[in-house]
């Protein structure tokens, strides 16, 4: 039985798979080789193994070869062994019975003379991860932990952790944690010690929920003797292990100041380490140790500055990104530390845009009286950059600096220059900024208006910029000669304006202009109100109607509502609360810093759930909503709501004295539905009649007011006697199956009430609402304006299930609904029920 010559077997690159036939071919060849002891067998085996593994790597299922691979594993060639270990480790989990075959040769290898083979075999043995084989693990692991070669011990320690994850009881029963503890405190080799530390941390953390002793042991790790033991050996540890130790030290609470200084002295040279991870871990220790000592804390900032800046400029872009995220956090806490080093944050042409973006944020954050001029000069150069997103960001950065009140004079000049650059995106960004500036510094209006007046509204396309321009036209119409005429031409093109935001602003601006220059604006106002009343967008329609009624009632009252005297904005709302910032700081050197939000926001199931969204049912996320996790969600939701309102109400001048409540006060021209809907109460009927609206918005208004017996209800059938089981249960698997099997019995489109839309900031709000109507959600996702939900409900006292796919678009206030039902005949009744539940969403 001669093996095929290796040359003919060797393909130029083992990467071309040919699928099924090749697998069976390989199987045949492996069988032939299995018993062979002829010289050269190893070479041909190696080629075959290589092919098998390359197939495995590409993703072809070669698990059918398991038996043959194990048969061929009897060899002394270490590369063959390694490939075999790799293969076995990959497929043992799906082939638990056949995995038993490998135990024998792995156990034999665990007693090999060569420590390398002992280590490798032990590692593979522990990586099999087959639950019913754990009994074979205890013996080799025990002797591995006592092995006289440190390499084997290192592997064995991690092996214990792997064993713990397969079967915690076996691991505890064999008393391995105690052995690891002994090793950790006594072993010569620091890699063994480090592995013990990481393994024990994990085991004790998981055990501590059930065992008090483990919890105590875990606490002990942060006690003085342990921390000092690790600190004294820190220089012997590998760089990665040093990071681990630093994490431990950061949690340690020293008893007095001299201890703090001792630790810092000991660790100071770690700041000079070539590995950025070590530097950052040390930084964390320093910052946390000195939190209680304000003056030393400042000195620490000075000390860590240079090493971190070096990391930024000398590392790869990916490293710079991670470091810059951390610097950004630091600079928020202590803006002055980098104020003289601002040049480090100048963008380089070749840098990836994610680094540039962070650098721009840094430049904004470090700007102060002394360096503003130079920073703004630099930022202005980026405005002419080829990279348009960065050019935009840099203009925004200039605006942010201007709002920080440093050297506003020069900056306003720069911004006005941008307006004259004749680049559409530059003009757009600059317009938005000028608007914000004017809200804060009304004294600059003369200069700005002169320039803004020269901009043709036809050249401004972006909704945000257009809205800003229109706002200025309205606000300063007395100073801009042709304001009424510009507005008039904009109103003429009402139908071509796609953005509701712009139309809303246009309505308000025409109103303001009217109060200042009535004769010139009257025609435009009439046209705008007519167009607004006929508008299909609910907000625009409502606002137009509101203005119309106000004007009818009393013009001077209308003026005091629409155009009251304003105070300049002193501070724009910060998007992050200081509490959140502190929490992020506590989690320094973790993902929280990169995401710029504390870990609970992205590790909690609740928050993650909202992220998860997939078109495919196969990847449906399960909406695990438990009672206790609702609380933080609501809080965040409320935060989000604040954000939402603050953006839609940009026009309003927030009185610095009144906190938050100003949002809902219907005194200004706010777009919040609550402000506009109330005065409509007595007008609902006439409005639908007078403007000839389609029934849909009319219906929404009726629902909004809870007037179930109004004209609008004629389109809604009275609720049928269908009741739902409030505690329906369905597992995702069944849902998927049913969804595939059942035909769509009903597909409809509803309108949503504006209040509902306003409440639909996150999918979770709707879920809770629907739950109260006995309609359960199984998966949800999406971000504004598009949300998608899968609901189900069960008929009371019957097994009949209804499945619903509901897609909501908040900008058009429409929801598309597909219903599938076991009992097709009742699906219409269910649809009505669903619709009425949905229409009540958002009502108090």
């Amino acid at each position, binding site marked *: 039985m001669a093996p095929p010559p290796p040359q003919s077997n060797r393909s130029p690159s083992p990467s071309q798979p040919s699928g099924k036939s090749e697998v069976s071919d390989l199987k045949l060849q492996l069988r032939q080789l299995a018993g062979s002891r002829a010289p050269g067998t190893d070479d041909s085996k190696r080629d075959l193994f290589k092919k098998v593994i390359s197939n495995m790597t590409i993703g072809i299922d070669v698990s059918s070869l398991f038996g043959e691979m194990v048969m061929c594993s009897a060899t002394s060639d270490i*590369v063959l062994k390694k490939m075999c270990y790799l293969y076995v480790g990959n497929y043992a989990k799906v082939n638990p019975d056949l995995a038993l075959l490998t135990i024998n040769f792995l156990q034999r290898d665990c007693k090999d003379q060569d420590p390398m083979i002992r280590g490798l075999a032990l590692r593979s043995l522990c990586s099999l991860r087959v639950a019913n084989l754990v009994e074979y693990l205890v013996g080799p692991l025990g002797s591995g932990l006592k092995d006289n070669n440190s390499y084997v011990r290192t592997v064995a320690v991690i092996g214990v952790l*792997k064993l713990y994850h397969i079967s915690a009881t076996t691991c505890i029963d064999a008393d391995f944690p105690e052995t690891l503890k002994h090793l950790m405190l006594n072993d010569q*080799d620091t890699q063994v010690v480090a592995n013990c530390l990481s393994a024990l941390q994990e085991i004790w953390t998981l055990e501590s929920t059930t065992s008090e002793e483990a919890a105590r042991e875990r606490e002990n790790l942060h006690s003085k003797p342990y921390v000092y033991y690790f600190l004294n050996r820190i220089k012997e540890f590998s760089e990665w292990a040093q990071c681990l130790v630093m994490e431990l030290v950061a949690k340690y609470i020293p008893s007095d100041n001299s201890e703090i200084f001792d630790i810092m002295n000991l660790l100071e040279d770690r700041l000079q380490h070539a590995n950025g991870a070590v530097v950052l871990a040390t930084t964390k220790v320093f910052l946390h140790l000195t939190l209680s000592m304000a003056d030393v804390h400042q000195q620490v900032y000075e000390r860590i500055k240079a090493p971190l800046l070096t990391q930024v400029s000398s590392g790869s872009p*990916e490293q710079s990104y*991670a470091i810059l995220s951390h610097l950004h956090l630091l600079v928020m806490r202590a803006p002055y530390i980098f104020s003289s080093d601002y040049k480090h944050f100048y963008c380089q042409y070749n840098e990836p845009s*994610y680094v540039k973006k962070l650098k721009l944020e840094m430049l904004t954050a470090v700007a102060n009286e002394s360096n503003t001029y130079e920073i703004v000069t630099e930022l202005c150069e980026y405005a002419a950059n080829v990279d348009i997103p960065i050019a935009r960001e840099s203009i925004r950065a200039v605006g942010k600096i201007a709002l920080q009140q440093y050297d506003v004079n020069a900056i306003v000049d720069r911004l006005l220059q941008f307006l004259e650059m004749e680049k559409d995106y530059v003009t757009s960004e600059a317009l938005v900024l000028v608007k914000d500036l004017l809200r804060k510094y009304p004294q600059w209006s003369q200069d700005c208006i002169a320039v803004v007046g020269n901009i043709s509204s036809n050249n401004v396309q972006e909704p945000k910029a257009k809205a800003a321009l229109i706002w200025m036209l309205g606000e300063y119409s007395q100073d801009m000669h042709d304001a009424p005429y510009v507005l008039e031409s904009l109103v003429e093109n009402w139908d071509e304006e796609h953005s509701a935001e712009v139309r809303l602003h246009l309505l308000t601006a025409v109103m303001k202009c009217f109060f200042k220059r009535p004769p010139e604006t009257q025609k435009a106002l009439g046209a705008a109100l007519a167009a607004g009343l006929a508008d299909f967008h609910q907000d625009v329609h409502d606002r137009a109607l509101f203005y119309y009624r106000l004007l009818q009632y009393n013009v001077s009252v209308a003026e005091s509502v629409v155009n009251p005297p304003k105070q300049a904005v002193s501070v724009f709302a910060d998007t992050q609360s200081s509490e959140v910032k502190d929490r992020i700081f506590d989690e320094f050197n973790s993902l929280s810093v990169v995401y710029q939000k504390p870990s609970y926001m992205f590790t909690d199931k609740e928050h993650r759930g909202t*992220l998860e969204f997939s078109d495919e049912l196969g990847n449906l996320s399960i909406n695990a909503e438990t009672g206790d996790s609702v609380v933080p969600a609501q809080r965040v939701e409320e935060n989000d709501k604040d954000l939402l309102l603050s953006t839609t109400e940009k026009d309003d001048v927030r009185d610095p004295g009144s906190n938050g409540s100003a949002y809902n006060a219907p005194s200004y021209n706010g777009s919040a539905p609550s402000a506009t809907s109330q005065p409509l109460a007595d007008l609902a009927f006439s409005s639908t009649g007078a403007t000839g609206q389609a029934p849909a918005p009319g219906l929404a208004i009726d629902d909004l007011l809870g007037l179930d017996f109004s004209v609008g209800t004629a389109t809604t059938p009275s609720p049928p006697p269908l009741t739902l089981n409030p505690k329906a249960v369905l597992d995702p698997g069944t849902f998927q199956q049913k969804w595939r099997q059942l035909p769509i019995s009903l597909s409809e489109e509803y309108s949503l009430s504006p209040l509902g839309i306003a409440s639909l900031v996150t999918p979770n709000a709707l879920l809770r609402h629907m739950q109260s109507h006995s309609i359960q959600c199984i998966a949800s996702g999406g971000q504004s304006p598009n949300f998608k939900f899968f609901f189900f409900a069960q008929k009371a006292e019957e097994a009949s299930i209804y499945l619903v796919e509901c897609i909501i678009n908040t900008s058009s206030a429409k929801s598309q609904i597909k219903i599938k039902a076991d009992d097709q005949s009742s699906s219409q009744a269910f649809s009505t029920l669903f619709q009425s539940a949905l229409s009540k969403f958002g009502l108090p």
Partner: protein
Amino acid sequence: MLQCIFLLSDSGEVILEKQLTGHRVDRSICNWFWDHTNSQPNSYKVVIIIIIITFSLSSIIIFDFSVLCLQQQPVIASPTHYLFQVCREGITFLACTQVEMPPLMAIEFLCRVADVINGYLGGLNEDSIKDNFVIVYELLDEMIDNGFPLTTEPNILQEMIAPPNIVSKVLSVVTGNSSNVSDTLPGSTASCVPWRTADPKYANNEVYVDLVEQMDATINRDGVLVKCEINGEVQVNSHITGLPDLTLSFANPSILDDVRFHPCVRFRPWESNQILSFVPPDGQFKLMNYRVRKLKSTPIYVKPQLTSDGGICRLNVMVGMRNDPGKTVDSVNVQFQLPPCILSADLTSTHGTVNILSNKTCTWSIGRIPKDKAPSMSGTLVLETGLERLHVFPTFQVDFRIMGVALSGLQIDKLDLKTVPYRFYKGFRALTRAGEFEVRS
């Protein structure tokens, strides 16, 4: 704790997958990552269709060209995992985790993996990884266990797993033994100097110290030097028998603004006397990095001038020596990206060649700057119809190399060997290159 590492090719194909913990990460995460990457506005596909350009040689290029610019953030949250990614030469190293961990640690580790694989295979590309995937698997096996990094020191790894070099290939053919795993474990895993092989022996003992500096400079529109600093490295190649203890001192260490050291450097002597005292790893390694800020001048100047009117832009770029560093400046190269609104370009130079690629990258290779006359490049750019003047200005990236000079002025004073009584040969060299040297117009 990392759970899985994937290597992806530039077309998003999985080249290699290494599961690290019991939790198996499904491959579908790579598809998610790839879709996510491609959906980002920043990672745009630049497809430039046909441009006709004439340049000094008056030839015409008609070209269809597309490049995928990967500009993905290094840390991303996917619905199921947190992903870290590092991209090198088109290969994406993707690591997944579900638990909180220091992001820089993951990124640093991936960078090391990339470096080590690069060193082993002599370059990163899809084919070399596929041809040597067994070695890559072996390396990953030794570098990380159960998601926690172990050893990433290339010297140590080379003792455990022999690199696939030509010598070992020839050997394997001759002897028939083609195992690339060394028979013994590295002795240093047990020694107290973990970066050094236990007991190397050399017939000729020698140490080479190289100062390699990179000058990063930004010159703004008005010709003002906005920023100029030097990032330097001290590279050492040591071949000494036994356990040598070296000390290296500089004549002017005070000019250094910040330093980073290889783990072998002892911190105290540096802190007190600015002396580098260390037991070197065997072979080539990076002893320290340093940074020198606030340099006052650059060795060469580049002066671009752009004037545009009536849809035509005149471009003129002058390059010359500013402060003669005493050694020749060579490999001078000026590169810039023509703004998208430019339809065609006609550029000629008095020295060197001008080359315009179809993706509107323009390269002017000058080589050595002649002593007598400063080279210049000039010509006209035709703007898009309807555009009167140019509003987006190119940034000129300058490349040069000066052998034998460290522009920061750092000088090595002396290198001494303690503890080992051998005589040994010492060699010093210096080199300065342009790093991010850019001139705005």
